[in-house]
C-alpha cells in the first residue's frame, strides 16, 4: 500500500468512502440473497426452486470459497470501519449536551446506525451458525439446507428473531443507501429526491422481504 493510499484510508473522508463502498456491495449482496430466498415461494412445501438455486451455486466448486471469503472481507472491512468511525465520533464530543434536539434529516435510522449495525452483526453470526455451519466447516448439501431452514423457521422464537433481523437490515439500509451517495459526493438536486425515495423503498423492501419468510414459515410450515 503506497503512502498516499494509506493516508486516504486513514482519513475521515477515506473511511467514509470505504464505508459507503462496502455498504453498497453489501446491499447488492442482500438483494441477491433476497432474490435467492424468494425462490422459496415457488415451491413452499419442497423448496425445489430454492434447492436448484443452491445447487447451481455449488457448481462453482472451489470458486465459492473465494466468494465467501470476499463476502466475509466485505463485512469485516465494513465492521472495522464502523468501529473506528463510531469510536472517533464518540470521542469528538466527550461531554454530552444536557439537552439536545435533533433536526435536519436526522432519523431514527441515521442516529442508530451503529446500534442496528451491531445487532445485525450479532444476528448474522447466529444466522451463519444456523445455516452455513450447521454441518461443520463444509456447507450443507442443498437439500439438507432446505430442511434446516424449515426446521429453524418453524420455531416461533427463531421466526420472531428473523423478523426482527429483517427489519433491522431494512432500517440500517434506509439511511445507509442514501448516505453512501453523499459519501461518494453524489449530491445533486436532480437525483437527491430519487435517492432519498429509493433508499427508503430499499429499506422497506429488504425489511418486508426478509421478514416475510419467517411469517410464511409460521403460516405454512407448522
Amino acid at each position: 500500500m503506497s503512502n498516499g493510499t494509506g493516508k486516504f484510508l486513514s482519513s475521515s473522508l477515506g473511511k467514509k468512502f470505504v464505508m459507503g463502498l462496502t455498504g453498497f456491495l453489501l446491499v447488492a449482496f442482500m438483494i441477491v440473497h433476497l432474490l435467492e430466498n424468494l425462490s422459496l415461494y415457488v415451491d413452499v412445501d419442497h423448496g425445489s426452486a430454492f434447492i436448484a438455486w443452491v445447487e447451481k451455486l455449488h457448481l462453482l466448486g472451489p470458486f465459492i470459497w473465494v466468494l465467501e471469503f470476499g463476502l466475509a472481507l466485505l463485512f469485516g472491512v465494513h465492521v472495522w470501519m464502523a468501529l473506528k468511525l463510531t469510536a472517533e465520533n464518540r470521542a469528538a464530543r466527550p461531554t454530552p449536551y444536557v439537552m439536545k434536539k435533533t433536526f435536519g434529516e436526522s432519523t431514527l435510522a441515521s442516529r442508530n446506525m451503529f446500534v442496528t449495525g451491531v445487532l445485525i452483526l450479532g444476528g448474522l453470526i447466529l444466522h451463519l451458525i444456523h445455516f452455513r455451519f450447521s454441518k461443520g466447516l463444509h456447507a450443507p448439501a442443498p437439500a439438507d439446507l432446505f430442511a434446516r431452514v424449515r426446521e429453524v423457521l418453524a420455531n416461533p422464537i427463531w421466526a420472531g428473531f428473523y423478523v426482527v433481523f429483517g427489519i433491522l437490515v431494512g432500517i440500517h439500509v434506509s439511511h445507509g443507501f442514501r448516505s453512501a451517495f453523499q459519501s461518494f459526493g453524489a449530491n445533486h438536486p436532480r437525483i437527491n429526491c430519487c435517492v432519498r425515495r429509493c433508499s427508503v423503498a430499499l429499506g422497506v423492501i429488504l425489511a418486508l422481504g426478509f421478514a416475510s419468510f419467517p411469517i410464511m414459515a409460521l403460516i405454512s410450515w407448522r
Partner: protein
Amino acid sequence: MSGKRISLTLKVWRQESAKDAGKMATYEVKDINDEMSFLEMLDVLNEQLVTKGERPITFDHDCREGICGACGFVINGHAHSKEKEITVCQLHMRKFQDGETLVLEPWRAKAFPVLQDLMVDRSAFDRIQAAGGYTSVHTGSAVDANSILIPKVDADAAFDAATCIGCGACVASCKNASAMLFVGAKVSQFALLPQGQVERERRVKAMVERMDAEGFGNCTNEYECEAACPKGISVTNIARMNREFLKAAVTDQG
C-alpha cells in the same frame, strides 16, 4: 411597539476555566422587555449579577448583527436557535413565552474546549484555514480583475459557500461534532473558482488532514449542520469536498 414583559428561568452552564469542571446554574430573569435581543437579555442579567457581586455569564459576541460569527451557544438543544438561519445575537425575546425555561450550553466538541461558561476556543477553524484555505497569490502579482471571467452561476455558488461566518454551529449541532460543513464550504468556494484550480488537490488534502487532526468527528450524513447553519450553507458543499478529495486521491502525485 413598546414590548410585552416576560419572565424566564435560565439554566446556564457555568465553568470557571478550561481546567475546571462546570455545572448548570439556575437564574430567574424577571420583567424582560420582549423587544430585547437575546444577548441584551443576558446583558441585563449580567448587570444584575455584577450588582449582586456574582461573576457575570461569559459568552463570545461582537458585531451583534449576525455576521462576525463570534456569538453562539445552544439554547434548549438548538445551536443558536430553533429559528431558521439566525445567530443568537439576531434572536429576539419576542420569540419566547412568559414563564419558559431555557437551557443554555456552550458548543460541545473536543476540538472546541470550553474556556469559560458559554465561551469556547474555536481556533481549530483558523488552523484548518491555514492548512489550505487560500490561493497562494502574492500581493501585487495579480492580473487585471476582469481578465478572469467567471460565469455568474459559478460566482454565485462560490459566494453561497463563502458566506460562512465560522461560528461553529455546524460542529455544535452535529451528533459527531464534525466540521465537514465548515471545511466543505471553504473547499467548495475555491473549487468553483478558476483562481482556486492551481492548488485544488493539495488544498483539499491538507484541509481534511488538518480537520482530522483537530479531533472533529466524521459525517453520518444527517444534515443537522445545514439545518443549524445561520447562513443556510448547503451540504452539497460537503459532497463537493468528498468528490474533490476522491479526485485528489486518485491523481495523487505521492
